């Protein structure tokens, strides 16, 4: 029996989180079917068909999927689900919205945010903000699973040649409609996929200073910019910058925490980074306990100096 994986995409291309989820799905050792539900999404379906290890792509093209409304997405997923033993999606804000709803329509519980596949029914997942790892066995007849992208390598985006099968959608539920969106525009790499992340905390003092200090550093490193919850709550940057238990989980090669003390919920979102640098004036800040390189001092002097020295 095959595994159904719900692609995260923007109708033109696949989001990187889809490739990480393919690797998780491959660990089940079953054929993988990818569902691309979108509108005018031929390019995304084609991209899904080229992913290494994918057996089949189902492409539902309907205006009902243009904004991935949970009610419409879940209805389609639940209609397809009985043909599969496992239904997976990346644990992105979209996957976390429609996958548990699809599970509910099928009378099943979801296994959320897995970080490993132990067997067909057993998975590990972080609980308590990652301060404990639970090994859980699902007794659901269909296993609905969201996948934490940072725990799995990305599958190769090319090399596959799966057939694309057009399927009908499940229509518009009439329960919800899209009103509008306010998306952060940025030329920088996506936070969850960036190789380097520069993150700022409340100690930066204002949105203006946050920008003035962190953007040149991020530009030099071609890094994404993140923030602590405190910095977001204080209004320095929008919500989508937040790294932590309830924000985004990142695991870049290099994470530079600037003026971040290291609250448990922030550490939950970045402690799997390969190399962590902490810059903070408080020598007792908890962030130093897990930083590979700690620099104690005034960030207002250190950050410009760091930006300058990296240029050489």
């Amino acid at each position, binding site marked *: 029996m095959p595994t159904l994986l719900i692609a995260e995409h923007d109708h033109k291309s696949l989001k990187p989180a889809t490739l990480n989820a393919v690797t998780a799905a491959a660990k089940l050792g079953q054929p993988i079917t990818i569902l691309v539900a979108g509108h005018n999404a031929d390019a995304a379906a084609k991209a899904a068909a080229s992913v290494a290890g994918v057996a089949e792509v189902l492409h539902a093209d309907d205006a009902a999927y243009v904004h991935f409304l949970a009610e419409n997405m879940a209805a389609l997923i639940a209609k397809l689900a009985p043909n599969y033993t496992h239904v997976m999606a990346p644990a992105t804000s979209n996957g976390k919205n429609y996958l548990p709803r699809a599970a509910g329509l099928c009378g099943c519980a979801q296994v959320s945010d897995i970080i490993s596949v132990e067997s067909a029914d057993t998975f590990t997942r972080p609980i308590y903000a990652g301060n404990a790892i639970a090994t859980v*066995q699902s007794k659901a007849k269909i296993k609905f699973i969201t996948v934490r992208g940072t725990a799995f390598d990305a599958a190769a985006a090319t090399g596959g040649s799966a057939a694309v099968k057009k399927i009908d959608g499940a229509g518009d539920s009439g329960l919800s409609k899209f009103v509008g969106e306010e998306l952060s525009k940025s030329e920088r790499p996506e936070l969850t996929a960036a190789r380097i992340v520069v993150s700022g905390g409340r100690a930066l003092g204002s949105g203006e200073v946050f920008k003035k200090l962190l953007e040149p550093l991020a530009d030099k490193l071609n890094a994404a910019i993140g923030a602590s919850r405190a910095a977001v709550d204080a209004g320095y940057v929008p919500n989508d910058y937040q790294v932590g238990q309830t924000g985004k989980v990142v695991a870049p090669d290099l994470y530079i925490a600037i003026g971040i003390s290291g609250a448990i919920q922030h550490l939950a979102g970045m402690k799997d980074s390969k190399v962590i640098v902490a810059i903070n004036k408080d020598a007792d800040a908890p962030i130093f306990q897990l930083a590979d390189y700690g620099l104690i001092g005034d960030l207002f002097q250190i950050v410009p100096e760091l930006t300058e020295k990296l240029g050489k």
Partner: protein
Amino acid sequence: MKILVTVKRVIDFNVKIRIKPDGSGVETANVKMSMNPFDEIAVEEAVRLKEKNIATETVVVSFGAAQVQDTLRTALAMGIDRAIHVPVDTEIQSLGVAQALKKIIEKEKPDLVIMGKQAIDGDSSQAGPLLAAMLGWGQGTFASKVEVAGGSVKVTREVDGGLETVELKLPAVVTTDLRLNEPRYASLPNIMKAKKKPIETMTVEQLGVNPAPRQVTLKVTEPPKRKGGIKVPDVATLVDKLRNEAKVIP
């Protein structure tokens, strides 16, 4: 309109958790417990809608042992009108909660259900969508703004790229994100008043639901520990280490 909110009693977010030596779970005995922070936001939102005269009645529901009545009292002290306690001595998981809530909702007939987007113990973030699916209602997850108007509710959602606004037909389920509001502290007079507010008990048998877990926790372990690193004296050393030791920058 009538609003139903749900609250869960969890280990306080400031407590450093301890894993039981036998790996069977996380120690909850003699540990400070509090209302799940996202549920506090749900309670606050319901109370504000009542204060704006949009809601006419607010009800809070919780599942768990006798002590969850303390959590219910907190919600009542914040301004919720009345409470329902479903006593459960063993673990109850999201699916069981959603099934039982569905039965309560069929009886209570609220127009809006507000829940936390996740509980900070299990972090599974699914009870809201599970419930919405079972009821056949629309869902507005990760809400940072909720506006009720006529027969619908506009929900601004925190999503990966920024913010998204959807409009849901009522009745609907909304789950709260961090920036929806700042929950109030209950005042002493309100804490006293809350003692007189009613807490009704409904058993899972009465609701006709079997709350047995469908997901078995085989073991709970410590996450891999990160070794603390070194302190560097200056920026030059930091750049040198990153370049030549960690090799993460060119």
